[in-house]
């Protein structure tokens, strides 16, 4: 039998794309559990409806497992957080539905969280970063942001596709198979054996980036059949990451902060880490790479941001808990972050 509430925890649900993630944190920021179940398509990319179907099937089990692993009672849940956007509509809706149901069952408030902000917040929790310039790179997002005057602001972003998308599509078009490893990791492995650098379009516009022309050029170069795939992977990575490093450096010089935070799925790439570290060193800044578990989409980041918002009294009434497919991170005042920055 349970007596008075032993802990106060937040359960966070992340479903912006292919992952159904559930994380549980206490209010001090200790991660009690962080469980994820990814939708893996037989072939091709993520079909939003199929991913959502997957999420609906596994939702119950993943939530139960997270609660079990965290060793808590449902009574300990003081707040339920969910990724409200941006992301794939059907996937977001599935997560939001689960979150609403759970919050209603536990009779606790609901907090809608911006997925991109959550990536930054968990990065700040799990690294030394306190007020960083963040490069967030994944299959769906590519942006450089930093906190300024009450909000996270976007200083640079992709003008077309995300960098992870660029690498994935390239990998699929040249016939690489994933076999359980992310396609980006396959490209990374091949690139290590590349020796010769091939010229590819380099497209930086101010602090913004464009990858689509580069992707087309890389694919057509491959189709000509005269280049070595290892060299092509190597050149593609070098070009794409140089572009990312350049815009990060521009943002860093512009906002004059002292930390560089690297997060998102593509952050797992060693070469990108190396480049960003060099950028940080050059500007006497600290490089902070978010650990893989928290750099990939995960429930813990949603739970933690949920706690930060909840502590500020920012909850999401049911009527406003609709999903926001195109919710920009600079659309929201980040009161909680203003406190830390001072």
């Amino acid at each position: 039998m349970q007596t008075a509430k032993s802990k106060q925890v937040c359960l966070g649900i992340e479903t912006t794309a292919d992952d159904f993630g559930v994380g549980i944190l206490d209010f001090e920021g200790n991660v009690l559990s962080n469980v994820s179940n990814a939708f893996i398509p037989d072939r091709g990319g993520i079909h939003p409806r199929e991913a959502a179907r997957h999420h609906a099937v596994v939702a119950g089990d993943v939530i139960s497992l997270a609660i079990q692993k965290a060793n808590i009672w449902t009574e300990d849940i003081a707040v339920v957080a969910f990724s409200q956007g941006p992301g794939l509509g059907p996937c977001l809706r599935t997560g939001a539905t689960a979150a609403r149901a759970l919050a209603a069952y536990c009779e606790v408030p609901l907090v809608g969280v911006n997925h991109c902000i959550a990536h930054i917040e968990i990065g700040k929790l799990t690294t030394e970063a306190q007020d960083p310039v963040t490069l967030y790179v994944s299959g769906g997002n590519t942006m450089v942001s930093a906190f300024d005057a009450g909000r996270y602001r976007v200083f640079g972003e992709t003008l077309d596709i995300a960098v992870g998308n660029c690498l994935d599509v390239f990998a699929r078009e040249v016939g690489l198979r994933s076999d359980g490893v992310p396609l980006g990791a396959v490209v990374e492995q091949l690139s290590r054996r590349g020796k010769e650098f091939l010229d590819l379009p380099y497209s930086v516009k101010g602090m913004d980036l464009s990858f689509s022309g580069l992707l087309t050029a890389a694919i057509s170069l491959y189709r000509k059949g005269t280049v070595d795939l290892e060299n092509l992977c190597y050149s593609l990575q070098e070009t794409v990451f140089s572009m990312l490093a350049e815009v990060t450096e521009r943002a860093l010089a512009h906002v004059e902060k002292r930390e560089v935070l690297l997060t998102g799925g593509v952050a797992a790439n060693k070469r990108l880490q190396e480049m960003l570290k060099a950028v940080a060193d050059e500007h006497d800044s600290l490089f902070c790479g978010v650990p893989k578990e928290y750099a990939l989409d995960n429930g813990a980041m949603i739970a933690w941001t949920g706690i930060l918002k909840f502590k500020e009294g920012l909850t999401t009434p049911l009527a406003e808990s609709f999903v926001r497919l195109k919710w920009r991170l600079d659309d929201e005042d980040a009161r909680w972050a203003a406190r830390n920055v001072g």
Partner: protein
Amino acid sequence: MKMHGGLQEMLVRKGAEASLFLEEWQGNQVILKHRIPKKYRHPQIDGRIRSYRTLHESQLLHEAKVAGVPTPVIFSVDLHESKILMEFIEGPRVKELLITLSLEARTLLCRQIGRMIGCLHKNHIIHGDLTTSNMILTGDGRVVFLDFGLGEKTAALESRGVDLHLMKRAFQSTHFRIAETCFAAILEGYVDVLGKILANRVVKKIREIELRGRYISGRSEHEH
């Protein structure tokens, strides 16, 4: 401030793209803009970018001047070392200046900037990095444009649109409180030079570029 390579040179600004040194040359104060090699990127990419941008920047600085847009005078260009020796422009950057101005003065300044951008575009010059840190207001009231390293020569509507879109973005990230009025004034000046018909096509293009971006409301906001 750090000293660099002797007493004559003083590092005045270390940007992402290049370091600026204040030097004495032929009895004048001049700026040496040096695109320093970046160790983090492949030497081939690095070399290509640095020499290309150095060449390009010096050409565009000149062409902008011909188009009637104030830019620093170039004294010498070293492509091998990626160095440009140019006139030292004294005055505050528009970035720091804007917030100190009254609404009226701000609007006038922005309109002037808009006219200058119009002059560039009319002459098929794309700046490529329009931010308020790349503009200096001199004592005689001219706005001097700097940093053409990302520029290009083209009359393409797309490039003009991206150029102005970047200007708008710079306002939104750095001067968010006054972004809207400033950018509106810039467009007014822009229309003055480019004419309504062409300017409107560029403005339409800006909107199209915005919508192409990620998570912009206006297409299918707040789906349930």
